[in-house]
């Protein structure tokens, strides 16, 4: 009985978070004012973090909040402010056939993925880190343990990827000295 109540409660919480997530993401793409879009996006990220918590991935949830809702949102807002918002706000959202076709394919893709996920034939192979084990040893520890042994190589490659990102950002936005010919 008590088990059932807990299950029901969890399900309700999940439903709430999921609905917030879906609503916020629809607002992101349907809003005209880019700043409002960005703020709705923060809500999407926070709700996603909630979903991660429900999946017992607290570390990922925190990273989601710090990196996405924090740093990436700040970046997006700065980029929005780089634009000429006046022009943006004066323009109307136009109906375009390309948008309708794009929307059609997006819905088709969503249905496809939905179908694929609900009709999966088998559960995937279960690794050595089950949810029970992860909660016993601590989420961050579990991540660390795998990240610094099994995934050592991708971890180091990630640093190179970050370097490329830095170089790209600097070279594309830094003022260049005029050539003296």
């Amino acid at each position: 009985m008590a088990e059932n109540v807990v299950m029901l409660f969890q399900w309700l919480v999940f439903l709430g978070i999921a609905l917030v997530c879906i609503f916020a993401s629809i607002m992101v793409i349907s809003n005209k004012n880019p700043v409002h879009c960005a703020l709705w996006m923060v809500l999407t990220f926070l709700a996603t973090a909630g979903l991660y918590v429900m999946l017992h991935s607290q570390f990922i949830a925190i990273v989601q909040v710090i990196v996405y809702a924090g740093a990436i949102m700040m970046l997006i807002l700065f980029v929005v402010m780089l634009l000429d918002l006046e022009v943006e706000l004066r323009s109307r959202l136009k109906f375009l056939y390309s948008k309708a076709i794009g929307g059609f394919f997006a819905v088709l893709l969503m249905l496809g993925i939905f179908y694929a996920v609900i009709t999966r034939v088998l559960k995937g192979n279960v690794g050595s880190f089950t949810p029970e084990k992860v909660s016993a040893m601590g989420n961050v520890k579990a991540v660390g343990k795998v990240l610094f042994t099994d995934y050592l190589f991708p971890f180091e490659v990630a640093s190179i990827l970050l370097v490329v990102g830095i170089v790209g950002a600097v070279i594309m936005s830094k003022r260049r000295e005029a050539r003296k010919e």
Partner: protein
Amino acid sequence: MLYGYFAILVYILIALGFAGFVILASHVVGQRKSTATKLSPYECGMPTIGPTLRRLPIRYYIIAMLFLVFDIEIVFIYPWAVIYRSFKGFGFFILGEMLVFVGILIIAYIYVWRKGALEWE
């Protein structure tokens, strides 16, 4: 398994409820006398001249981007710090791992520095 989060959920609900209650209460109880001055965006200070949605210079973008990259670096260091002690006997291994990672990013940092991207020109 998520019992621990029940308290947090209650906390969030109370926080939201309190915030909503206060706003609602001031809306209901408080009195409003709106004048043209009160409705202007800045009640005190100078009236704005020209459009308020100014375009920011690009240098904000560079700073934000660099912050983001080093933020991600911190995210990687956090589990490393937590796990460090359990690598008994492999201390040099795990230290070396992080030294390589941070070393590569320090090179990027030196690059950014020398390039003058940190200057507010």
